[in-house]
């Protein structure tokens, strides 16, 4: 985990924004409440995870069975992979909303590569390359124009969607390499799914890179104060490009896992992963304002979402209402994030 930063380290524009609009002290600006909010923000995910597990253990007989727990891990691993890439990008104070359609597009491109005669390694490489190219496009558009990354990637999201429609004409394609399907369906020792191993392995690798390497630290500096980073001789633009490409590659990895699981392509396979990956990262303690967060935090955030989802299903909450719960959780978490940031 990255070292704790003191709360006073805010970027200039936000300290400016907080210099007005405080005519008299309010309850939620009081030291007590802020302390609570800060603790909540830093350890929300762990706290929620414990609460949900306790609730689950008491309210359902099947919740704590190894089979159900492994099921949860299996269910969250794809979102986890996307959220890890999103975390790297959030740390640099950027977003990627295009993951939703890139996931679908990569599945299609991978299967098309197989239909063209490529094997396991070749088709996976083509898929990952597609993700990297989209990441590069996002990076180029955002870094060169300085535009709002959120809106730009909403645009490239639609471009990726249009590309997947034009590649398949809305038809379903089927994988032709049996070894490829093993990525999604196979289990190590017959117990743990490959996708879970990929998720955990990626998390550990990213945690190491982000906290122990110069490149990783420069990601945090990019998010905290790009000017200071540039003046200190760090390659800020390079860090942003790398983060965008990494996010594209993790989205591609998720697309490959989903396609290997189902053995077929669905253009909308990634729907909702844009929003969910941001919720998972922020829930884990990665700030929307950059410079704060980490891969292991995101693992906990992803687990919270997975356990919550599992609980809502076990408790028979209608699927339509789960969207409301998700939105409210999102607003609560970003509120805590902004509160600690601004006051």
């Amino acid at each position, binding site marked *: 985990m990255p070292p704790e930063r003191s709360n006073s380290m805010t970027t200039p524009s936000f300290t400016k924004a*907080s210099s007005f609009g405080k005519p008299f002290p309010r309850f939620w600006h009081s030291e007590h409440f802020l302390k609570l909010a800060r603790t909540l923000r830093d350890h929300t995910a762990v706290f929620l995870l414990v609460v949900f597990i306790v609730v689950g253990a008491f309210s359902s007989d099947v919740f704590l069975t190894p089979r159900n727990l492994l099921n949860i891990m299996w269910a969250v691993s794809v979102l986890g992979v996307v959220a890890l890439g999103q975390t790297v990008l959030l740390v640099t104070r950027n977003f990627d909303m295009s993951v939703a359609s890139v996931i679908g597009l990569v599945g299609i491109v991978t299967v098309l590569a197989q239909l063209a005669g490529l094997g396991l390694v070749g088709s996976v490489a083509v898929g990952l390359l597609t993700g990297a190219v989209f990441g590069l496009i996002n990076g180029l558009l955002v870094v060169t124009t300085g535009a709002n990354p959120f809106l730009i990637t909403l645009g490239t999201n639609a471009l990726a969607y249009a590309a997947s429609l034009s590649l398949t004409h809305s038809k379903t394609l089927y994988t032709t390499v049996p070894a490829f399907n093993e990525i999604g369906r196979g289990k190590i020792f017959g117990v743990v799914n490959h996708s879970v191993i990929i998720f955990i392995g990626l998390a550990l690798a990213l945690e190491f890179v982000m906290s122990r390497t110069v490149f990783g630290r420069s990601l945090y500096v990019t998010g905290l104060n790009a000017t200071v980073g540039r003046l200190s001789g760090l390659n800020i633009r390079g860090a942003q490009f790398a983060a965008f490409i990494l996010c594209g590659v993790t989205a591609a990895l998720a697309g490959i896992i989903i396609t290997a699981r189902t053995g077929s392509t669905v253009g909308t396979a990634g729907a909702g992963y844009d*929003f969910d990956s941001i919720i998972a990262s922020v829930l884990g303690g990665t700030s929307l304002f950059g410079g704060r967060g980490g891969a292991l935090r995101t693992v906990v955030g992803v687990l919270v979402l997975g356990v919550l989802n599992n609980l809502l299903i076990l408790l028979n909450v209608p699927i339509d209402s789960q969207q409301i719960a998700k939105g409210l959780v999102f607003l609560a978490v*970003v509120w805590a994030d902004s509160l600690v940031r601004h006051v």
Partner: protein
Amino acid sequence: MRKAMRCLFDVGSNQVALLIAAAIFAALALATGRTFLTPENLENVTRQVSLDAPVVFGETIVLIAGGLDLAVGATMAMAAILAIGFQGWGATIATFVALGFGFAVGAANGLLVTRARIIPFIATLGTMSVARGVMLTYTHQQPLSGAIESFAFWGAGSLGPVPAPLIVALLLAAALSVCLRYTRFGRNLYAIGGNREAAYLAGISVNRRLFAAFVASGVLSALGGVLLASRLNSATVQLGNDTPLLALSAALIGGASLFGGRGTIGGALLGVLALGMLANGLDLLGVETYHQIAIRAAILILVVGADALLGNLAKRRSAGVGAVSLT
């Protein structure tokens, strides 16, 4: 009279939008032969544009104040669903329920931005998600269809040759133009968008005005939803999925900026007209759906990128006066 028109729609400062709209009009008139220029098609285009206009007006008002509203699509869709769903109580009540929902979403956005100080696009992304959830729970993903004949007039009816929603859109445009240009509220919004801190120091109650801007956007989106429900005489959860992007593209083409402090209702009208004509023309030319999606996406990237480049340039020129961007 001409001067009054100029003031109302501020055509003078919207040359870019006017140029784009005129270019698209000319290109389509040439490319489609005479199909585009037939009275039926022109009526069709103006009707569609008038349905989209209120949402774009709302987005423009928020953009002028330096905010951004991504919940417009969900608000519009839910308002359409409520306007159909509450028809058992009569058309008037249904309309007011729908507008009330828009008010509630706008107020929630306003509070989240001004009190909880969540940056606008994140806050409105959250309310969008909640509104979509409410919509799914309310409809169980089933389409609703209307029962009241007279309700269809505002969206589908005509007064002589003029589509009814066009009249609504033009009256709304006139009222909002006057409001933005000549009232204290309107001038304050430009001041807040231009430089929030200066506006605050000049004694403008920034939070109250921002709150009002988000509420206006919510209510206008809901009005768009009511008109849409009246036009379709039905409503589904799929409505409004593309609306935030359309509204944003149209408002930016119309001269508004994500940096705030710029934009007019007349420009927004020209922006939505340009995009509406383009969509209609692409349909007439038989362009495939996925190409249309790609074209819309490219337009969004283009306008957002251009806005950022121009905005950063202006910021560098006036370095020191530095506007605080909310987005």
